[in-house]
């Protein structure tokens, strides 16, 4: 079998496996649903997630250790992940193939020639790396040595790839200056609370990007008629932006094949840097050949195998090996006989990218969203870490939103700030309910523990967690200007009815409000009193919510005609004499929230009959993850 056939089988297999895991991330008990399927495996294999969370947190969480296997294999084989495994790469390659079908050899060679812009992805990697390492110097003091070691190695990898500038001395001076600035900056901003590590890479990291795009765009579209992944059509706020990025990434392949892989992919950049040290590599066995350029014409990585090969760009598609009529291209341990070159990165630009990355988190946080101007709409799922620690871990893969049984978990849009883009936020109106009381699915699927894998006991504050109480996502606030019993003299209390905690966090106080001008009694007859003026709407006061009050007594109205009130008279009642005044009142149960009981699940908000802007809304005050946002005195 031809090697490229084996590669295609591998690509299709892993793409299918990826899509399968996306479908299997369905909460349920059937064999194809979430019951042990390793639905995070691709995210785990992505070493960028693992390495960057190591930088931001000092540890590698659970399954992310798989990234080590990918790194090890890359050090041996080169960028096998890009050419053989990456499901997004497979999609890019397929669309690129569609766009190249009618092209002649000359045009193919032009489209697949190495471009200087391919270095952009290394700068992006440097940017994300520095953004994730922003507060590392501070955290060294906390003994996060593995993170420091990984950071140092990665920095060396990036800097080592930068081509030696004209003056070696000036480079080291610049690097030293950057380091000194970093230190000063860490110490200064560290005090100001602006410094932080931010895992921004998830925005462009291909596996989170594809997972997010499938979970929140492709699957909901495909599943709307199928109803396999969710029992009802599922909506995701701002899905259009996620979809637009994904579609743009795919369409760009029509212009240049594997556009994303060549110019954007920070994971590919990491593999490229690691691949410089790989044991095996693609290359020519002799410098001379017939120069038919078949290899260059079909090169997926744009690495020019016919000439001095750009080794870091090679994605191991092995088209060159398969097509070479002279059979001078081989996959072997020796470098290419025609020569090899490393990424053509200017050190100045690498330093600029690193510096920009370092500045990014403080710049993003200068808006105050992690400080005094924190956004109360940002209600995070149960078990989510405090915001700074959360942003240091969240990959924006959308797995939590995928698995959420009610669809209350949604990708945060730009209105929540750039740094929170596509991280999970609760939207109490879009799904089938609020956050379900006994559900902890999101934390158990989160690949990086940005949402901790909590137990139901911990969520409810029971058993060993009784002392700390339930996990609160926020608190419900009643908007008395919109609430029917508060503002409009109409009974309701749907919120109280649906509050799932026991005892309920919403309680009511009864209030009687007059709904008509006072009436005069014409005469009374048993439980009936005839009033003037008449003109009452027959039956309208008999709903059980209306009362008649006079001096010394009050009785529920059981029915009425135009001028007669039928009453359920209280005990010891004497019918009012002619000329006495009576008033008609509506009995209102007005809701109040007890912040000591409210957990912020949002079910009240979901069910509130004020269907647009709800009259009871949950915001993040009192959320357990931020003690400083507490409302309660303890």
């Amino acid at each position, binding site marked *: 079998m031809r090697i490229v056939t084996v590669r295609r089988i591998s690509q299709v297999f892993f793409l299918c496996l990826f899509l399968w895991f996306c479908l299997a991330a369905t909460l349920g008990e059937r064999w194809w649903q979430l019951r042990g399927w390793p639905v995070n495996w691709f995210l785990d294999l992505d070493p960028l997630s693992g390495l960057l969370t190591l930088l931001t947190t000092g540890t590698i969480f659970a399954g992310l250790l798989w990234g080590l296997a990918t790194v090890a294999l890359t050090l041996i084989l080169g960028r096998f992940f890009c050419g053989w495994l990456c499901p997004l790469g497979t999609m890019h390659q397929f669309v690129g193939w569609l766009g190249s079908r009618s092209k002649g050899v000359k045009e193919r060679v032009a489209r697949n020639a190495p471009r200087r812009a391919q270095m952009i992805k290394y700068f992006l990697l440097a940017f994300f790396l520095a953004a994730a390492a922003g507060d590392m110097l501070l955290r060294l003091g906390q003994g996060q040595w593995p993170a420091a070691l990984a950071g140092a190695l990665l920095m060396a990898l990036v800097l080592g790839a930068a081509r030696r500038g004209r003056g070696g001395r000036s480079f080291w001076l610049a690097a030293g200056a950057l380091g000194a600035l970093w230190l000063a900056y860490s110490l200064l901003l560290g005090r100001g609370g602006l410094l932080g590590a931010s895992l921004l890479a998830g925005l462009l990291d291909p596996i989170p990007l594809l997972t997010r795009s499938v979970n929140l765009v492709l699957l909901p579209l495909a599943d709307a008629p199928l109803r396999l992944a969710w029992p009802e059509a599922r909506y995701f706020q701002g899905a259009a932006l996620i979809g637009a990025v994904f579609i743009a990434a795919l369409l760009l392949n029509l212009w240049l094949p594997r556009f994303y892989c060549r110019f954007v992919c920070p994971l590919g950049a990491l593999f490229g840097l690691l691949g410089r040290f790989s044991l095996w590599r693609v290359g020519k066995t002799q410098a001379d050949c017939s120069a038919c350029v078949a290899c260059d014409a079909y090169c997926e990585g744009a690495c020019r195998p016919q000439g001095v090969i750009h080794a870091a760009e090679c994605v191991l598609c092995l088209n060159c090996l398969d097509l070479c009529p002279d059979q001078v291209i081989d996959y072997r341990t020796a470098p290419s006989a025609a020569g090899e070159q490393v990424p053509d990165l200017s050190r100045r630009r690498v330093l600029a990218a690193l510096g920009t990355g370092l500045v990014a988190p403080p710049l993003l946080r200068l808006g105050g969203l992690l400080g005094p101007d924190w956004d109360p709409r940002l209600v995070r799922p149960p078990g989510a870490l405090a915001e700074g620690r959360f942003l240091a871990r969240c990959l924006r893969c959308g797995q939590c939103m995928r698995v959420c049984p009610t669809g209350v978990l949604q990708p945060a849009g730009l209105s929540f700030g750039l740094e929170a883009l596509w991280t999970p936020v609760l939207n109490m109106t879009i799904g*089938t309910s609020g956050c379900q009381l006994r559900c902890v699915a999101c934390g158990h699927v989160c690949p990086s523990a940005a949402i901790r894998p909590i137990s139901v006991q911990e969520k409810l504050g029971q058993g060993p967690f009784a002392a700390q109480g339930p996990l609160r996502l926020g608190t419900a606030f009643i908007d008395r200007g919109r609430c*029917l019993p508060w503002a409009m003299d109409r009974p309701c209390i*749907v919120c109280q009815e649906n509050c799932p905690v*026991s005892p309920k966090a919403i309680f009511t106080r009864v209030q009687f409000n007059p709904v008509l001008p006072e009436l005069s009694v014409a005469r009374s007859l048993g439980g009936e009193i005839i009033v003037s003026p008449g003109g009452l709407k027959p039956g309208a006061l008999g*709903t*059980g919510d209306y009362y008649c009050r006079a001096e010394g007594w009050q009785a*529920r109205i*059981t029915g009425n005609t135009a001028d007669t009130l039928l009453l359920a008279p209280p005990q010891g009642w004497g019918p009012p004499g002619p000329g006495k005044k009576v008033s008609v009142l509506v009995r209102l*149960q007005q809701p109040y929230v007890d912040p000591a009981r409210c957990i912020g699940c949002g079910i009240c908000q979901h069910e509130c*009959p004020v269907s647009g802007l709800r009259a009871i809304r949950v915001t993040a005050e009192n959320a357990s993850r931020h003690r400083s946002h507490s409302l309660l005195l303890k």
Partner: protein
Amino acid sequence: MSPLLPPDEMDRRDFLRRAGLAGLGLAAAGALGWWAYDGRGPLASGEAGPQVKLPSYAVPGQDRKLALVKSGHRAPALRAGLEALGGIKAFVRSGDQVALKVNAAFATPPALGATTHPELVTEMVRLCLSAGARRVVVTDNPINDPASCFALSGIGPAARTAGAQVALPSAEAFRPTTLAGGRLIKDWPLLYGPLKGINKLIGLAPVKDHHRSRASVTMKNWYGLLGGRRNVFHQDINGIIAELARLVTPSLVVADGVVSLVKNGPTGGSLEDLRPTDTLILGTDQVAVDALAVGLLGLNPNQVPYLGLAAAAGVGTLDLPSLKPVRVELG
């Protein structure tokens, strides 16, 4: 690409051909305009879909039946109660298609008593099938996420294991309905899909405290047949419950007060909210069944306005002795 015309010359033939094409184009555009022209503009609201009307599911000759079983166990109580009313075969005959309207409103485990107990569902499905029912469908439009409600309440697995179908509410399952002479149920979405082809409807409801209406039993249980933003009806809770009772004429209703949710209803959430009341009430008169059931919550029927409204509308009677209720004590 070849030009339609050579650049410089145009002979008569070309001119005629062009003139013909232009004429055809004009005619086509004119015809399309004529055909699509709308001089009146759109209506204020879209076309209403075809309305559905729920038939009466009452079994002829079985009206005015009421039985009360004292027992701490649901399955034997249900069997004994049905025996007292003439046996399951009095209600379900061979070939019948039966719908069980359960209360699956909340995603809570059965032990918390906020939903119809799966034991009751299992036994009722089993009895219906043993009486020769061709098909039993278990349905509800819950408040919390439907799939989670049916799974966590145990109703879904219990129904499937016993041989019934479980019908979750999907958007297509709802059809607008109007209650003749009604004030509230007008062109309102009804969970009609699962009831298609059904000729027997049985309501299975737990006995629960309800802050707004005082009690949630078999009549309030029909709320789960409504779709849309039904919570607006809470403004007139007694009116809507009475209208629902008028809308739905069941074959049989069962109020499960073996354990009652006596406070913090209708969601409950704690075992503290429950009290063993060891009573199962069955009947064909919803008003009478509910009137007996509210007693388990310490209420008398006069304190529950919707009972009076429904009785006044002719749904049933509050004069319980007139029904000659059968009382069964199981040891």
